């Protein structure tokens, strides 16, 4: 039996598969209004972004809705206008909303359509208690801790962005000489000074996954959210890592809306897929009630917390990504544009380079993985 098994297993290795699927080109033009943002209950400005839905495959990246009249209204008919600041972003003044009232957004687009959201009660977001981390399975797991002593928040959304500093494993001390006419590499020469501009960089990421937490089924309104896992020896922690977490309290309806959005657009592709469903929201077109509108405008606030993790706080965590360099002879056939010369291995005489080290550019030029402009907040 053994003899038969082995080839069979080898063939079986490839049986399930996922391929790119190109949608039918004939998808309809929709152009529904998309309303994103929240009415800020946290004593600051509110920002509402207006865009339009496009065809599934569309040359336009995003179609912004310009020159609309946008205002926040409360139940007592007070209004607070928002002004378009840049492409589709409408921003209010700093507002101090009355937590006892309900608020809604009112939009009039340039084509005369009017939209309102449902009146929504003010939600206060509890502050983030802390961001903590611990080593799990060789990697670093970062947690968000929060609680609401009144047990009334229950639904949370979290967003985060992260920045980390890192260094190239190799410093560039020599460079190719390029013929200005033919653009060909004609030699290798030493730089007067090592190129430190591509040695130290920062990288910032803002993942777009929707992170939702419900404490509905817990006895305490307590959040313990594993928000980010850094793989063992990951480059994020090679020097200094920063994470900024923003927390929003959600109404139950907003939670359901975002959960549906997440299910429709992120959680597909399993054997037991939920069926994608129509995405409503709490914004309605009052001039044409049958017109679909995408978006949910909640009245909430943002709470922010930050955390730095230094490589020194970890044990046995490498300070660079694994890279290797090799020695080549200084000959034209070795002038490979896909490799980057780093430093001299051996001279002929006093100045002439006999052989030198080369490495993958990603191991030398940190700007291939980030920016060499230090962020303003960086210590």
């Amino acid at each position: 039996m053994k003899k038969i098994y082995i080839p069979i297993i080898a063939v079986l290795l490839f049986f399930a598969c996922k391929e790119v699927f190109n949608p039918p080109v004939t998808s309809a033009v929709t152009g529904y209004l998309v309303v994103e943002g929240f009415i800020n209950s946290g004593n600051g400005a509110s920002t509402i972004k207006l865009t339009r839905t496009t065809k599934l495959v569309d040359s336009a990246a995003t179609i912004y809705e310009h020159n609309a009249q946008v205002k926040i209204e409360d139940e007592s008919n007070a209004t607070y206008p928002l002004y378009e600041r840049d492409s589709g972003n409408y921003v209010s003044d700093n507002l101090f909303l009355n937590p006892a009232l309900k608020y809604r957004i009112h939009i009039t687009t340039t084509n005369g359509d009017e939209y309102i959201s449902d009146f929504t009660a003010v939600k206060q977001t509890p502050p983030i208690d802390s961001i903590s981390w611990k080593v799990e399975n060789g990697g670093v797991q970062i947690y968000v801790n929060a609680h609401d002593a009144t047990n009334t928040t229950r639904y949370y959304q979290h967003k985060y962005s992260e920045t980390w500093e890192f260094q190239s494993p190799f410093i560039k001390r020599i460079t190719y000489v390029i013929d200005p006419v033919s653009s060909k590499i004609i030699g290798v020469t030493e730089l007067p000074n090592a190129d430190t501009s591509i040695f130290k960089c920062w990288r910032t990421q803002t993942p777009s996954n929707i992170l939702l937490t419900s404490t509905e089924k817990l006895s305490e309104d307590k959040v313990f959210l594993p928000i980010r896992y850094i793989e063992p020896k990951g480059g994020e922690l090679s020097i200094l890592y920063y994470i900024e977490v923003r927390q929003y309290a959600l109404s139950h309806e907003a939670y359901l809306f975002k959960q549906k959005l997440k299910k429709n657009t992120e959680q597909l592709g399993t054997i037991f897929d939920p069926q994608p469903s129509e995405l409503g929201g709490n914004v309605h077109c009052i001039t044409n009630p049958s017109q679909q509108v995408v978006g949910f405008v909640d009245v909430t606030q943002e709470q922010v917390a930050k955390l730095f993790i230094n490589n020194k706080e970890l044990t046995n965590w490498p300070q660079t990504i694994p890279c290797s360099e090799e020695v080549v002879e200084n000959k034209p056939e070795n002038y490979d544009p896909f490799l980057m010369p780093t430093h001299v291995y051996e001279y002929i005489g006093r100045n002439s380079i006999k052989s030198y080290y080369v490495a993958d550019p990603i191991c030398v030029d940190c700007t291939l993985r980030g920016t060499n402009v230090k962020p303003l907040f960086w210590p």
Partner: protein
Amino acid sequence: MKTFVYIIIFVCLSFCSAAISQQADSPLVSGDFKNVPVDSFLVQLEQQTHYHFYFDTAQLGAVKINITAASQPLKTVLDKAFANTNIYYAFHKNNVFITKGLQVQTTLPQGFFSGKGDDKGAVANTIPDITSNTAESKSSAAENKLIIIGGNAGNSTDRFTIAGYIKDAKTGEPVMGASVSDQDSKAGTTTDQYGYFLLTLPKGHHTMVLQSIGMRDTKRQVLVQGDGTINIDMQPQVMALKRVIVSSEKASNIKSLQMGMQKIDIKTIKQVPVVFGEADVLKVVLTMPGVKSVGEASTGLNVRGGAADQNLILFNDATIYNPSHFFGLFSAFNPEVVKDVELYKASIPARYGGRLSSVLAINSREGNKKDLSGTAGIGLLTSRFNLEGPLKKDKSSFIIGARATYADWLLNLLPDQYKESKAGFYDINLNINHEINKKNTIYLTGYLSKDRFNLNSDTVYAYSNQNVSFKWKHLFNDKFYTLITTGFDRYDYSIFSDRNPVNAYTLGFNINQGYFRTHFNYYKSAKQTIEFGFNTNYYKLHPGTYKPLGKSSLVNLDAMQPEQALESALYISDKYNFNTAFSIEGGLRYSLFNYLGPSTVNHYVDGQPKTEDNMTGKTVYSSAKFIKTYGGPEVRLSGRYAFSPAFSLKAGYNTQRQYIHVLSNTAAMAPTDIWKLSDPNIKPQYGDQISLGLYKNLKSNTIETSVEVYYKRIKDYLDYKSGAVLVLNHHIETDVINTKGKAYGVELLVKKLTGKMNGWISYTYSRTLLKMDDPAAGEVINGGRYYPANYDKPHDVTFIGNYRFTHRFSVSLNATYSTGRPITLPVGRFYYEGAYRTLYADRNAYRIPDYFRTDFSMNIEGNHKVHQRFHNSWTIGVYNVTGRKNPYSVYFVSENGVVNGYKLSIFGSAIPFINYNVRF
């Protein structure tokens, strides 16, 4: 030996009914035979006389003749020649039959036509020398023996009822579905699932022809003189190198009143190649016309446009709520224990009820009543073992089967999101039956299956079926019997996750039912059979219990209130044959459903959508209180008109009610779907179906063809609002909507189950459309228009073929094509929450690409020596030979801010498989 038997049969069949005495005068022959082989001797005699000699050279063997004859009578010469040998001769007209061991009897016993039954002994004497002890000679002896039934009563025009029981001579198991018919009048019937039959014949001599799949065709000479009984042993079909195929009466599809009914025996099931090579009951059912599924790895069957929860799946008598293992890749039924499968799509017998679309009855074998035997099999993913044998010889037997998997290695090959997954399952079957006496038989059946898997590393799913049933069959008399069945079924699943200590939880669900059923069958006459009975079923469901796991878990206990109900039904059905051509069966089933306390029921504003805002209050009901009763009659009507013995027309109408529903908003039926009882806020489903079929058999009934059309309506089928919460929802009625459905189609089937080349081709055109257009109920779907159901695949062609090169080597090929299933594709794109995201509108407006798959397998059996201890067989094949990447789904996800479309294929390449089986 075999050739000899056939000669005997042939001779008897041809001449037994002719009463002509042996020739008295005998021609004269001459010759000097010195050491002449017997065959040349007989050839020389034939040349000298006008007689034809019938003999089998092989049988007579190397006997040498040493006689001298000079113008002596033929008989004298033969007497001399065969003196001191065991060779016999017999004359009939101008024919001489030379046989070894026993003599061909060319005359009928005395009094055969006189109606005197007491010369049975004379008949038995006609074959005096049964020297061989093999089953073959026994059976041939039995075939020739005249069996007298009943005392001599009545006059020659009366008809009498013969109650019979057929069992397998080798294992002692009853033979079900065997065809029993009178050779001359063609009057016939089939045995029931316990091997019993009733046949009404006129007084006089008859030849009863008995046929069953896997059994040797046999006959019995009966002299009917009154009502009586007969017990018949049938010999199992040992693979014969040459055999006479009698296939004149295999026309049950023409004769029966059932339409939309398919029966497949395990032998056919085992021939059909399936992925991983393990014979799979449900996958073969899926090849029948009118049966579809959402995709390759899904459990649910969709029968004639019905939802997956609208099928009553009965394993013996137990209801199986989840008939699959391992995400639907395997069916939960051990092929070594299964005997056959019956699928009722249209004329569902009145004794079954409670589901709208179909009844799938899976019958298991009873176990060998003579010897201890068993089988074992090894496959790529599973191994199985079964053992059977007598507990008390000829009276009781047991069969136990078990199956287990070692599939983790396979999961490592699945797409990335399933890496680190683990899965395992096992199932165990036990059947015991005991014949207390001729009138009473009891059956005990047990079934246990368990699955456990985690699809990604932190959540573990487990589910289990547990069933036990006890059945008593009692014969009041030959015409009237009853079946009393009681049992308990349970299905449960649990999920647990302990990765995040604060949220660590377990979620459990279970459904329990205890039932009691009585069924009476009264065979009034050849024209009329009446069945009636009473069923009751007590349900107890725990629709979800959410519990903390571990000390640091903050999870609150959230237990849904248990649900309990009683579903009962009274039914009667009457089958009446007006004449051989026209018969009608009318059935009426009255079903009653009582939703019982203790329970708290939510109230809503009348005429308003059931939403949380419209909830007006709650009523608390105490234990055993009848909270809500639903019920109503269900009609089961079918009729048949046979234009000829090979051509009939059938029509049927039936209605169904269903009180238990699956809550699921996934495309495929998932093991973690929750079942929900009808309650004051959730109405039962109701469906009716009208169907019409034409059945024509060709080539002496070896080819069956049929065309069936149907139209079906479904009312109050449960669908879900967008974003419905189904788990732990204490007011589920606010998230569901009642939809209407209609389904219609045409099913064409050509089937050949005998011969070297066998198999079937089916084509189905069918549509299943749903509609939700009542704005008062909440949400309307697709603007209130009809939209296709998930399993609406209009065109479907299936070919199943098996070609037997020799008795030890056969190849099977199946091919299936169907229209791609409907899916909801995004209509647009928008930017939200930091990513491009998809916008969905019309439900199921697009279709995934069409499905096409071909599978191939070879079955190689070891030698067929009857008496060897072990019989080996191998199955080697390839699933999806063409390697076509049939899409299971097409989906769009937002990844790193952009929308990507993917096509997921479950089996995207050719999959070879191998299976080894041993029978002992």
